């Protein structure tokens, strides 16, 4: 215990929290209505109303980027809850969290300021209930889901998290060289001829990819974050910490330069396909030389909404995620091997019966 306490480097954090303009109680953002709702007095407020009544809500003022603010942070930090005064410990990357004693939202200002100040964000548009419903309906159309897997009771934790993403504008330029073939066929008498023409085909040019997302947090599985794509660029709005109320938030811990390679690889793959598809006359195309390069034209740091759903089933943890904007729900579901076996037998028997019936039909007809 003493050791753990030693690991926690006490560091006072200035916390931000949103309060009801009417009763000053703690207030949270409601994803469904797109407004802030006070559960204490029942009032609801738009962003403009919140900004007009609360300095805290106009996070832009306090969270301006400061160049050079990149001090080396420790693993854990503590803060004082503005609501009940309790001391809460959070890890290094946590930018918004909850007081474990009173449940009050706390936004750690320094985590979202300076170079960690997001440029844009997409507010949550899907509620927690929708994430729970999506989990409960996973068995629909999936016969191999274990019978009791989708019970709500298996959800150990469900959190709405603003995940840090890098959005890159990427320009891909250059050319590719392909060996390509066309085929002509003709028949003279009973002789069939096939003429194969071989070409050296070059296609070059440039194209822009806009706002390619790459997860900036090492805490979250990149493949899961890839799988909940896409997010709508049109839904991006300037960052405002008022939207963090009621949700968790992370700051990035992977630098934009470091993870650009992921965006680069994806854009190069797509560009290669676009150029290859442009050579429409050919039946087979093999790339023999590739001179494509991906250049970062612009980069922005954004927070994107994700519902993280932790499920415990038969003492094993499963992680699911739902795109907080579109509702796309992803995760790997365990297989019920008994059902797989049963379905295999049933499908085989049915197909076998059909194939025998077809061969008998052909026999009768023929």
């Amino acid at each position, binding site marked *: 215990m003493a050791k753990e306490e030693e690991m926690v480097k006490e560091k006072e954090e200035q916390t931000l929290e949103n309060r009801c303009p009417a009763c000053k109680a703690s207030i949270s953002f409601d994803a469904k209505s797109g407004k802030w709702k006070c559960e204490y007095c029942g009032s609801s407020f738009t962003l403009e109303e919140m900004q007009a009544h609360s300095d805290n809500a106009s996070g832009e003022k306090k969270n301006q980027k400061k160049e050079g603010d990149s001090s080396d942070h420790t693993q854990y930090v503590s803060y004082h809850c503005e609501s009940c005064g309790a001391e809460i410990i959070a890890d290094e990357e946590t930018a918004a969290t909850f007081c474990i004693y009173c449940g009050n939202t706390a936004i750690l200002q320094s985590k979202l300021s300076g170079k960690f100040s997001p440029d844009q964000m997409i507010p949550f548009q899907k509620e927690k209930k929708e994430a729970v419903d999506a989990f409960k309906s996973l068995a629909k159309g999936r016969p191999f889901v274990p019978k009791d897997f989708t019970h709500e009771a298996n959800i150990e934790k469900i959190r709405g998290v603003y995940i840090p993403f890098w959005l890159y504008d990427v320009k891909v330029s250059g050319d590719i060289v392909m060996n390509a073939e066309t085929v002509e066929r003709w028949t003279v008498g009973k002789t069939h001829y096939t003429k194969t023409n071989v070409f050296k085909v070059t296609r070059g040019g440039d*194209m*822009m990819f806009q706002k390619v997302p790459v997860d900036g947090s090492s805490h979250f599985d990149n493949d899961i974050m*890839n799988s909940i794509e896409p997010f709508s660029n049109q839904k991006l709005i300037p960052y405002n910490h008022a939207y963090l109320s009621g949700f968790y938030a992370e700051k990035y811990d992977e630098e934009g330069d470091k993870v650009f390679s992921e965006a680069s690889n994806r854009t190069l793959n*797509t560009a290669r396909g676009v150029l290859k598809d442009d050579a429409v006359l050919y039946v087979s195309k093999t790339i023999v030389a590739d001179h494509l390069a991906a250049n970062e034209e612009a980069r922005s740091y954004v927070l994107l909404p994700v519902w993280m759903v932790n499920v415990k089933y038969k003492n094993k943890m499963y992680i699911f995620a739902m795109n907080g904007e579109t509702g796309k729900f992803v*995760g790997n579901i365990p297989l019920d091997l008994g059902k*797989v076996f049963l379905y295999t037998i049933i499908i085989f028997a049915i197909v076998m019966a059909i*194939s025998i019936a077809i061969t008998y039909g052909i026999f009768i007809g023929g």
Partner: protein
Amino acid sequence: MKRKLLFFILLLLIISILPVHAKPETYDRNTLEDYGVRKNWTINENNLNNVLRTYAVNASEKIYDFSEILTEDEEKQLREKIDAFEKKHHMELIILTDSYEYPESLKNSCYSDTMADKEIFRINDEYAADFYDYNDFGMDYNMSGILIFRNTAIDPCFDAMYYDMYTFGNAQLYFDQSRYDTVLDAIFDDLHSDNYLSGFESFISKVDSYVTSGKPSALEQYYVDESGYLQKLPATYHVPWGMCAAVSGVITLIVILILVHKNKMVHKAVQASAYLAKDTVHITNRQDVFVTSHVTSYTESDSSSGGGGFSSHGGSSGGGHSSGGGRHG
């Protein structure tokens, strides 16, 4: 007197060591009821000549050596083997030899081997089939039996003697062309060299082994009707278990894999097509340089695929039989 006695004794000795041949006994058909034809053939003006020119014999005998190429002792040896064959297979086996002269008109066909072959085949086929059909040969309802005919007459085209084997009734089911060829080829040397005992023994042995081994697969779908014609059995449906299981296995695997895949929703993203601004695609370099070309060809084979099946050919009697195709030698 002594001289005469000595000469007589010497003559008797010579006669006793010379091979003894015996001509088969025949009957005049005009004296017999229905011309000696006891089978259900219709005798009319079209086949009456065939009936009358065909030897009428006692069908209990199995060897009809009109050419007298077998001694009585050889016939006895062969008869024992034939009896054993008939008991084993319940099928008649006849050895027929004759010097059946070819008509003068055959010479008109000598210009072509194929034509000559066909004509010689036809003449011998008619003779042998008539001999079998118009005598009381054959076992069971469709008169099953096998006959080998050695025509010792010399034909004017190939300047050779001829032999062929003929099958009647169910015996037709045991011989496809390959088996006929094997039997006829196996006895060629012996018959060509006049080693008739050895040749006919080989014949009986070969025929016995084939009948014992059962029908060749190509004839399994056939039967012989009451008139002696090969008929194809009505097709029966056999479940193609192997093919159905293979197809079902592949389809099942595909369906199961699709359903399993539904449980895996997390995939690594390798494309960024959703983020491509399509109006920014500028393809500025398009080069298509011809390098080479090559032509391949294949010609459809003229040979027709698929078997034509089997069929009997009819004799003058109207009954069906099959034959090996014959050999000149």
